């Protein structure tokens, strides 16, 4: 079973009020569900479908189009490491490999302690501060090995 937390329940009408058509709230509600649970479970899609009067299939169809929705539980910190051109030109591949070996996982995996999930990511609009990674909502730019060490060590 999935239910929105009372605080999130309260936000639903606020979100709906932004739009003349309730379906527009689909992405915001999926995002809210993911923030609450860490991922978007089938039950959450059913629940959102009920709220917005959409078939669960439709909800999944939309959710699966967007790469930011995780359909399975992830680590506490999701590291999105940009490897697109500007970052690549500035050594992102090597830093990504460094990060993976530091975390002792392969790209795409989650650490055994469920703390970190590491993904290769496309351009995140920080090109003039390449290389960069995004950890949850925070951008970390102008990366170097030392900087990565410091950032990862500071997270608990």
């Amino acid at each position: 079973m999935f239910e929105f937390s009372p605080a999130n329940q309260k936000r639903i009408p606020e979100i709906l009020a932004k739009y003349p058509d309730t379906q527009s709230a689909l992405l915001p509600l999926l995002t809210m569900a993911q923030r609450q649970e860490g991922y978007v479970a089938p039950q959450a899609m059913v629940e959102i479908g009920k709220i917005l009067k959409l078939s669960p299939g439709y909800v999944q169809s939309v959710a699966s189009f967007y790469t930011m929705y995780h359909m399975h539980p992830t680590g506490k910190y999701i590291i999105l490491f940009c490897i697109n051109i500007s970052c690549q030109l500035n050594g992102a591949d090597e830093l990504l490999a460094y990060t993976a070996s530091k975390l002792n996982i392969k790209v795409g995996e989650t650490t055994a302690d469920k703390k970190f999930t590491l993904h290769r990511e496309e351009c995140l609009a920080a090109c003039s501060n390449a290389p960069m990674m995004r950890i949850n909502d925070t951008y970390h730019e102008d990366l170097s090995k030392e900087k990565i060490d410091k950032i990862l060590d500071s997270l608990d």
Partner: protein
Amino acid sequence: MPELKLLTKDIDKKDLHKLSVYEETGGYGSLKKLFKKKPDEVIEMVKASGLRGRGGAGFPAGLKWSFLAKDVFPRYLCCNADESEPGTCKDRLLLEKTPHLLIEGMIACAYACKIETGYIYFRGEFQHASDLMDEALKEARAKNYLGKNIMGSGFDFEIHTHLGAGAYICGEESALLNSLEGRRGEPRLKPPFPAVEGLYSKPTVINNVETLCVVPYIINEGPEKYASYGTEKSKGSKLVSVSGHVKKPGNYEIEMGTTVRELIYELAGGIRNDNKLKAYIPGGSSTPMLPADLVDTPYDYESLAAAGSMLGSGALIVIDDQVNIVESTLRLASFYKHESCGKCTPCREGTRWMWQLLDGIHNGEGTNQQVDKLVDICDNISFKSFCPLGDAAVGPVASSIKYFREDYEALLKRNAEGTA
């Protein structure tokens, strides 16, 4: 110095994102002038300024506004803050540093186009920018820059933020509309164009963040002033994200027509380790790359088009001679394969096939015929896909073969058929 700071003059001011600081710099000053004019006059001003869309296509902003279906209401304004084109990071700068400038620009556009509701569509990763914007909107509402009867003008306008969730294609305007309506971010058939049937099937203006941020300047200083900068057809200033192998990467606001050489060597401090320039991608990953000998091309719509590329979203990616171009091309091909929405056949299948071929070539398993085949595949995708993403995917591949075939040849199989 070729810098021309029309939008970014105060960008480094501390706490510019706060309303009080923004007002100190003269922020929201354009509104008094705005509300003295008739909506149509505002459109005429924007037309006269020569302002062209900064999101990629360079379509004249005032003209776009004048295309709205007559007498159909409500109408919507969507600000395109999806900024997903590799190499581009100028909108994020504006959004995070000066959100009120965008709000001010959106008010002007909405007033001119008789729009009461606006949305800012942020790419999903811009949570921080969107949070800042929500704060800014709250402040603006509190001072009646937004809401009912703005500053006693009788004009009502409200702005909402909306976050995507990870899809480059949602920067394409019709895919953006689908995404905002809670659908898969697949592009829509055109016609009807958004100006006729856009958001919720109503007439809709879609403009890039930077485009809208220019509007307060035009209202404040007059269109003539804006048009006095730049070239004949590319007016004003342009915010350019410079990245790659330069010493001082960053966002530089320049006068249109400044040369690429000036951008690289004066503003961005030259190539790292003083290496030689090999190639540059002038306007974001979708625009064809150009070789070093075209470094004196002026940075404006026409000159870059004449050189065989595009100004695009204004993202200059600089590549030095230490790189085999196939490597960069492969990376971009992988990006387009990842971002193709999958709706149309040439783009869905073609981007993957190009990537497969490039990957093989990059691994030393390619043949000369495969390089020719890549050229033909590019031709089969170009202008045949549903939306311009397919054409965008072709840009780097076709141009890299055109200018750097020797990089390909260096990687081809050295066995008999390979060299045949």
